[in-house]
């Protein structure tokens, strides 16, 4: 009892020291500071604006298509020429006041509506996969880095195995052999299963360094339990790495989803997906190039924006850590 008495204040003290340090030195990952820096960068701002548009499109897809007048699965036989193999009427793939981005050949589905709904699929899958890989990567990375020994051995070997695996081939094999079921969920699970080791590796390495730093030693010496050490001492200091790694992985997952859909193992029709649209546009490139150009442009700009943004965030954080 007498031993326990003085222990509690010490722990509080340590925490107070940590908290007190916040306003003064400013942790390198302060959200406000990052946002401030990004807002002053024109390229980053442009990317942010474009991503905001895409996200809003995805969120308000039903409202937007109500405005434009055509749902994503609605056929419009009048907009295509059945005698010419189903090529859209009019120039530029049938772009008109009726169909803002033109129509899909052979069935006359509105491309604008499909782009908007396709954004939903891409973003939902990419973000869910990011969250899942984030959780898996951080948890396993922390465990391996903090406990070392056999835990590290086991987790690291699993990571080596997954990273050495030809992931894309395996994903295609898994997705085409599994029954249709709930495709988006399957896609998220499969993408995450192969994605987490990349984050976990970085987290493990940083955890190992952090675990030996003085403030962790101090906390341990003052009797903090392992859980407290991991969540209160180490995790906050990994924030920067986690933000950078996950931001940079989102475009990768969007690309992977589009790639899998392109290869025919993505979401099932009639669900709209950018990858699937690009896949079906391939044979139409010479008669209806807009069918390829529109989803291609959206996919390109989204991936580019996310990559540029991730890069900017990293440089801001790196600069913060350096000071």
């Amino acid at each position: 009892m007498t031993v326990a008495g003085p222990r509690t204040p010490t722990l509080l003290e340590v925490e107070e020291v940590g908290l007190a340090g916040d306003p003064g030195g400013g942790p390198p990952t302060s959200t406000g500071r990052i946002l401030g820096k990004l807002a002053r960068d024109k390229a980053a701002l442009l990317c942010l604006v474009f991503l905001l548009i895409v996200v809003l499109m995805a969120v308000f897809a039903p409202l937007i298509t109500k405005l434009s007048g055509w749902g994503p699965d609605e056929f419009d036989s009048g907009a295509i020429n059945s005698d010419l193999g189903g090529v859209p009427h009019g120039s530029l793939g049938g772009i008109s006041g009726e169909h803002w981005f033109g129509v899909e050949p052979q069935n006359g589905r509105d491309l604008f509506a499909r782009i908007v709904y396709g954004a939903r699929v891409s973003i939902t899958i990419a973000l869910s996969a990011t969250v899942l890989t984030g959780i898996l990567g951080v948890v396993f990375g922390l465990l391996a880095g903090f406990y070392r020994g056999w835990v590290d051995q086991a987790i690291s070997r699993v990571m080596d195995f997954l990273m050495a695996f030809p992931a894309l081939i395996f994903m295609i094999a898994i997705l085409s052999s599994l029954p249709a079921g709930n495709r988006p969920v399957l896609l998220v699970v499969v993408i995450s299963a192969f994605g987490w080791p990349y984050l976990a590796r970085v987290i493990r390495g940083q955890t190992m360094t952090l675990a030996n730093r003085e403030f962790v030693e101090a906390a341990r010496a003052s009797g903090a339990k392992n859980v407290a050490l991991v969540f209160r001492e180490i995790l906050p200091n990994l924030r920067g790495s986690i933000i950078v790694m996950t931001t940079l992985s989102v475009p990768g997952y969007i690309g992977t989803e589009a790639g899998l859909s392109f290869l025919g193992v993505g979401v099932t029709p009639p669900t709209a997906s950018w990858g699937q649209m690009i896949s079906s546009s391939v044979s139409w490139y010479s008669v209806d190039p807009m069918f390829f150009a529109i989803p291609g442009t959206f996919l390109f700009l989204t991936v580019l924006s996310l990559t540029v943004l991730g890069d900017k965030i990293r440089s801001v954080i790196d600069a913060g850590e350096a000071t």
Partner: protein
Amino acid sequence: MLAGLVLSGTLVLSACSGNAAGGESQTSAGPGGPAAQGGTVQVLANAAFSHLDPVRGFDGGVNNFYRLIYRTLTTQGAAPGTEGTKIGPDLATDTGTPSDGGKTWTFTLKDGLFFETGAPITSADVKFGVSRAWDPEIGIGSPYAKQLIDAPASYQGPYKSGDLPTIATPDAKTIVFHLKKPFADFGSVVAQNTFVPVPKGAGAGTELDSKPIASGPYKVSEYKAGASLKLVRNDKWDAKTDPVRKAKPDGFQWTFDLDGATIDERMIAGQGTDVDAIAGTIQAATVARVQTPQLKQRTLTGLGGCTTYMGLNTTKKPLNDVRVRQAINFAVNKQTVRDAVGGSTLAELATSIQPPTVLGRVDYDPYPSPEGKGDVAAAQKLLTEAGLTNGFTFTLDTRAQPKMQAMAVAIQQALKPLKIDVKINIIDTSTYYEVIGTPSQQHDAAITGWCPDWPSGATFLPPLFDGRNIVAKGNSNLAQLNDPAVNAKIDEISQIKDVNAANAAYGELDKQIMALAPVVPLLYEKVLTLVGSNIAGAYLHDGYSGGIDLVSVGLTDAGK
């Protein structure tokens, strides 16, 4: 036969629609002109042949090809239109002499028939070839020999069970078949590939798949499975014995495994040896590009002779209710289904089960709607009667192929106003027919096709709708329709001795079956093919899925 495995069939509008405009006067130019002797015809193909062994392969593509290297007792004609599907003698001197009320059929072989080895073709070789159809591993092709010819129940082909006693060969020129029951159209049956002669004792296992023994005008000189195939003249073949095959070129060269878009690009460009090339149907995206007069002159178009349909599994709820099946028949928008496969140039809307190329077929529309766009009101009325105002859900099996998926989506969309929720189940192309042909694995509906093996209802309606043909594996009665009245009618028609009367009766049976709505006839797909500028003598053959008749095609200028 299954349309997907093939695309076999028939065709009606004969060759060149484009040629009709300007080609007739300048007879030497264009694909319809007379072919010169010599040269090599190039064939660009997407998929390789399933089998070179005549007892194994059974689809429009190989059937057409087999005529180049094999001969049968009788064969189809070599001309555009219905002339092409008329059965005439080939190895035999006539189309057979029935006796015993049509239960026994006798054929006599011509003189001067030889294999590529130089050995004479005897009736024993024909018998040996036919008896291979009973081998459980080899006889996976045309089923008619096994179905019609009487044989001991335990007979398993010549390699396992030896001689088949029920086919008699009294001398080297005569062959006598004894059937299980009278069959009036047996003269058409012996045109099937199972009646190709095979030298006695040869062809065990997969031997003929790699090295066929030719009896026709060409023999295989080089075959790389899945890549290329080269045919050269078989000098043992005597043109005097063969009134059907013109066999003008000196050889054929197949290139397999080419992408559909690549084939179209090569055919449009027409460079190098591609001027001597022929290919299959063009892709939907290419239709708009072949509308120029220069290219149009090089196109051939006609019906493929098959019916593409959606089978409705009559054993599943609520599709077991005839009103529900009729409602679906009313509601499906065939226009959008047609656009999904490439529009009006690549398909016609189907109304009856049998395609227009089948003899005795009646043109009627049991579930009419304006321009085939679907009659939702009529469908809704039937569903209300069936107590399904709030709709239902069913699973539609389709192949993992863009065209098939697009058709499924069009059907899904057309049934949405009825609150029918169609779940599309995509099955890998290689296992598709196995899955839907297994009643325990098939779902509520499936999109598939069927082509007649010869243009008669006998090869169309009984395989698809005879309730006694439902088997646990390899089932073609997808609807699992087992209607006593339909079964009785099938038996009744099989007794009719006059082939024309039987075909007319099948036309009426078509109506009787469609009243039960076990399938939704979707499309009669068309062939639209582009040939090289040096191709001559080309027309689409009604009997081979609208493929270019290979025994007549040749080059305008063989020295080019």
